[in-house]
């Protein structure tokens, strides 16, 4: 890759990297950064921290899962930046939110004691705490082909009838362990319970996010061919592993 050439820039906003990054979510950012570079784009990563001004330039948003204690720290700030995130979503800015932030991109998370933590309501979903942890390898069918990942959550997410799901479960529990749905989609915003990290082993999905980011900024995207042989083999093995 010719680094010295003027690469086109993409601005990635990483939501709450200090509080919401517990399951290798950093790997999603790294994957987007590296693949974008391989496609000929330079990604500048901006971290958004609670209480700070939301980054002005944002072509792509990534957010992860966190400890319960981390979630407490960010929830007020998320409501403050909610309108800004919604505006960007309607401008077709792609976003990927995993686990904890996926839940808070919905209407609310209801704790075991019945307390409701308000979300930004971008997804028409509700999440309820449960006493069971849904843990293990997951395979789902999505618009981006078969996706593999690993889930680890105790919140059960219920989609409204009109809410599009990201995937249909072929192995694992997904949103709630009963209706075979996994994750949610709103325009170019994707919510999911899958980490692992999700993007390295699902390069088609990673490239779709980069393409959407490039399209909304430059109205075009020139894909390069990337050798994904290692990802393919890692996927093939992951699919065969026990839950």
């Amino acid at each position, binding site marked *: 890759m010719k680094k010295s050439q003027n690469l086109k820039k993409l601005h990635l906003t990483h939501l*709450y*990297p*200090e*509080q*919401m*990054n*517990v*399951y*290798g*979510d*950093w*790997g999603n950012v*790294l*994957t987007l950064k*590296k693949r974008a570079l391989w496609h000929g784009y330079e990604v500048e990563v901006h971290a958004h921290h609670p209480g700070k001004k939301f980054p002005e330039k944002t072509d792509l948003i990534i957010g992860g899962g*966190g*400890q*319960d*204690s*981390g979630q*407490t*720290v960010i929830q007020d700030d998320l409501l403050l930046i909610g309108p800004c995130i919604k505006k960007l979503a309607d401008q077709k800015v792609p976003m990927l939110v995993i686990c904890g932030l996926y839940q808070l991109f919905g209407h609310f998370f209801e704790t075991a004691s019945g307390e409701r933590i308000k979300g930004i309501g971008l997804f028409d979903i509700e999440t309820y705490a449960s006493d069971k*942890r849904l*843990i*293990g*390898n997951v395979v789902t069918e999505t618009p981006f082909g078969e996706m593999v990942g*690993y889930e*680890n959550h105790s919140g059960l997410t219920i989609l409204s009838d009109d809410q599009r799901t990201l995937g249909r479960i072929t192995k694992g529990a997904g949103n709630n362990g009963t209706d075979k749905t996994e994750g949610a989609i709103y325009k170019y915003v994707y919510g999911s319970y899958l*980490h*692992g*990290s999700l993007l*390295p*082993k699902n390069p088609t999905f990673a490239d779709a996010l980069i393409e959407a980011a490039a399209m909304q900024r430059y109205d075009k995207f020139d894909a390069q061919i990337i050798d994904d042989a*290692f*990802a393919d*083999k*890692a996927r093939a*093995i*992951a699919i065969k*592993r*026990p839950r």
Partner: protein
Amino acid sequence: MNRHQAITRIGKAARKISRLRGGSGSALPGLIIEKLDPNYLVTALDSLPHGVVVITGTNGKTTTTKMVVHMLRDQGLKVFTNQTGSNFVRGVIASSLTQMDSDGIVDADIAILELDEAYATHFVKKIPPKYCLLLNVMRDQLDRFGEIDHTAKLLEKVAVATTDGVVLNRDDQLVRALSEKISKQTHVRYFGLSEKLRKKFPSDQEMYGTHQPHTVSLPQIRSSDVILDSIKGSSAIFAFGTKPQPSTKLKLTGLYNMQNAAGALSLVRMIMDKDLSTETLLQSLSEVKPAFGRGEAIEIDGQPLEIILVKNPAGFRLALSSYGSKPATTMIAINDNYADGRDMSWLWDVDFSMLDKVAVVSGIRAYDMTLRLQYDDIEIGLVSTNLASALRSLLQDDGPKRIYCTYTAMMQLRTILEKSYDIGAIDA
């Protein structure tokens, strides 16, 4: 013969049969006894004069337990301990069978038990320990324990159940915060790092943003605490309180082993109290070798081979910063069996960019590891999910070698090394 004695005989017989059939003699007799009498261990360990001591935490349990046991034996105590790697209830029962009189009472002054965090909470409900040493809370097999905050709560249960004295890691904010939960009657002591060393240790909590509702500030160092003051090569200076002790040359390597040595010293000082012989204390510490897979080099065809266990991102980062800069042909072996943790996401929380090249990648999840290295632009040699052939290929290389591996990959490698290379049995 009472019931306890009868069950002991059954257990011992089961152990003999299991060993005759080529097993390790660990799982089966433990299982049988546990079924026959869930309170068996309580009876067996109830009357030890110095009581039961629990060592737990995420990283370093096995090597730290080795240090404590060795030092206490040199102090003249008869010590019962559980076998390496079998730190679940059945393993402790099986270990106790070998060190028991015919009445089924463990013949020792004190029991030093290495317990897995999740199991430790069950154990202390039955047997409240007299002392405990809590090493650290790091992200380890989150798919098994849930979340870091949850792991901290497990350690809290152990601390609260302890009757006489608790030794806490001063530098780990989650462990340090437990001091507030412990009853006034229980003594609290600390181990930790000097100001200048603390900078070298990446903190998992900084990395994962495990925010305490309120952080407990660093406690004042008291004379009963043990602080790792400085390291020079393989020598360490420990301070008892603020008093530096003579420099000690250690067989243990790695910053984290030396940090945990401070914890072991603090615990032994607490247990021995007035009967402590300070002169022999550091001498015995200097003799302790790391447990298998914790950095000790074995020799194969005249060349050193280091096997380094990595279980979680913090441990892997520490291992890379402790060993990675010393040149060696490198292999990484990643399994995802239950004991390793099935979740591979932790590999993405380790920065591998300090490695130029990884000559061999292996284990069940070899390709997950390779994919991780690809994104750090690391040169990769051979990739093979077959551990035996991967090892063979590594050993063909001249010069020093190093293998970073997960727990079950380490156990497999050990078996292969013992069987196929003329190095005899490897001491655990």
